């Protein structure tokens, strides 16, 4: 079927099977490999993207349900002004505040969960989420990380939610 939607602010139009996973369309059809596949069944959150304003697992969304909607992936986090002109993506060295905070706190280690973790956190912050440890942990409860023990991730998100809380443990 013919689907049209916005990815990181840019319109795309594709002819793909309607049941193709949004994850496969992003990675295979659009070459946006920032979004990772972990479990492929909605358990790990590695493929989290923002559909309209809600965080979703891209492995569980058929593309037919994305037609006419808006998708944000990790490639779209960095401010457009700071980006190079690659078709959809950002260049290294132009991070947004959340990515920067992950970098500075050690919230990103091996990196496989990071794109999904960033998108879950971004959705939480865009929804007005505060620098509250319980609330942040709930917001990223659908994202598994096997490196950090989550403490540094929570700290990074809290830092962006409330720049005054940098000294807190998260």
């Amino acid at each position: 079927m013919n689907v049209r939607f916005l990815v990181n602010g840019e319109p795309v139009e594709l002819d793909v099977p309607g049941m193709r996973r949004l994850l496969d369309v992003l990675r295979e059809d659009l070459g946006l490999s920032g979004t990772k596949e972990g479990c492929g069944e909605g358990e790990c959150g590695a493929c989290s993207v923002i559909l309209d304003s809600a965080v979703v697992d891209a492995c569980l969304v058929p593309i037919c349900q994305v037609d006419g909607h808006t998708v944000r992936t990790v490639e779209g986090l960095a401010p457009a002004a700071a980006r190079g002109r690659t078709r959809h993506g950002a260049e290294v060295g132009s991070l947004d505040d959340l990515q920067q905070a992950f970098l500075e706190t050690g919230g990103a280690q091996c990196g496989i969960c990071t794109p999904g973790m960033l998108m879950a956190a971004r959705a939480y912050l865009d929804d007005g989420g505060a620098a509250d440890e319980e609330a942040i942990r709930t917001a990223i409860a659908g994202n598994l990380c096997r490196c950090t023990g989550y403490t540094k991730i929570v700290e990074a998100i809290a830092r962006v939610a409330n720049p005054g809380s940098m000294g807190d443990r998260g």
Partner: protein
Amino acid sequence: MAVEPPVESPRTLAEAFELMATEPPARPIAGGTDVMVQLAGEIGEPPERLVDLWRVDGLRGISLEPRALSIGALTTYTQLRRSALVAEVAPALVEAAATIGAAQIQNRGTVGGNLGNASPAGDTLPVLLALDAEVVAGSARGERSIPIGSFFAGYRRTALTPDELILRVRIPIVPGREARFRKVGTRRAQAISKVVLAVAWRADGSAAGAGGAGGGSWRGVRVALGSVAPTPIRASAAEAVLEGASPTPETADRAAEALAAQISPIDDVRSTAGYRRLVAARVLHRLIRDAGAW
């Protein structure tokens, strides 16, 4: 790459009914949190075709009828959690929605999907059983109301005919009704239940305090469980013990015992039969204790 069967995306209920009535039989898909997993994991035979309901606005919305709360089949768990109406009429359903998956699943999974998938572990299902909900189903032939007690026909099977869709679920408004929900899983988020339990009752008598606490006797008692049988079930033996009784320690002991004797859970990857039996009885005991405030 996962299996990609053909799919059609109707805009209206009439179109959806027509597609559901067409051969070969179609599997409806709403938020995809079950269907997509089954396709990706090659669990069971993939459907020959799918009908995507996501654009059918006639299946959305939460509204108050004169004597019931009506919840559209496409209502997501996030919408349940944010609804003032649901919080007022069926707070236990809000609690159940909050325990399902995490944000990603709650933003996509729906009440209609939880019912249609008919997993014995569906977390909203014991609540809907305890609240005497009705499932309103529809097809090109018309609408009918199915009491939730006769909706689950067997393991992952429902009373729906192949051409029928779940339109909405109706929860009767019962003055003075209390309900409690408890889920036991490996962790708070992203866990499929080992045991899930909901209890509802009306408290009679002057001893009943705020929130139904205290020694008033219980009427219209419902005890419903998930993950302990091939379908979500009512625990009639425990209900019989509790009906007309006050939430005393003796009542709690007898009800817990009756529950443990009635259910026949199984060992599986998530838990064991023995653990489930023990925990189900224990959770019921504690809910009665909390209600009795002792």
